[in-house]
């Protein structure tokens, strides 16, 4: 487990890494959710118009 520690700076390094990866993940999640939402909306509109 020693390789997971960075001396007295462990907290600072890991919190920076965690924050960065959370934001990267959130970017992917939000962008994909937005795209899916608009694709669904467009499909529903199209289906409603066809009926």
């Amino acid at each position, binding site marked *: 487990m020693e*390789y997971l520690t*960075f*001396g*007295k*700076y*462990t907290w*600072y*390094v890991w*919190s*920076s*890494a965690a*924050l*960065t990866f959370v*934001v*990267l993940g*959130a*970017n*992917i999640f*939000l*962008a*994909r959710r*937005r*795209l899916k*939402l*608009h*694709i669904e*909306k*467009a*499909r529903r*509109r*199209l289906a409603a118009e066809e009926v």
Partner: protein
Amino acid sequence: MIPWFGWIALALIAVGTVGGLWIAPPDYQQLDAFRIIYFHVPSAWLSQFGYVLMAVAAAVGLIWRIKLAHAVAAACAPIGASFTVVALATGSIWGKPMWGTWWVWDARLTSTLVLLFLYFGYMALRAAIDDENRADRASALLAIIGVINIPIIKYSVEWWNTLHQPATISKLGKPSMNPDMLIPLLVMWLGFTFFFFAVLMVRARAEILVRERNKKWLRDVIGKG
């Protein structure tokens, strides 16, 4: 193309993280605290690159009236803002052990905070105007005017006395970093850039879907999909 950019980004970020956290030697002065650079610098780079790209796209949209350019500008804003938050937060985390404080109102930090507010202002302005064309024009003007902040951020460490260190990597000069430390940083930088474009493409698609919702070509594409 999006999966390619995404997977390349993921691979590069994974390699850069391993290189930065475990392979690069500790700094002689900052010891292991310097490893925050592998998250801070690529985020700070993208926060500024994202803004320049947004301003260029907005200018193209404004001058040549290309709607796709406005869509790209609108897609850049949330991604750029998120990287500005990361740059500010990781800088603050790095500042605590090195400077003894989370925040100082020095030129680099303050101008980066202004950048975040410019992103927020751009997004708020777009959201506040219902008419798409007017929103495009007004937000494009804000993006173009705000680009003046980018050279201020870049040269703030030279123009003013700041706690923030000067540039570590310079395209014109010799980098002040040891190659063992520099290579993982460049890998991270490249990975973050690929990541930015992967997310930008997804967001731009969503933006185009909203704008072109009444167009026949889009209905044909959606109908087929």
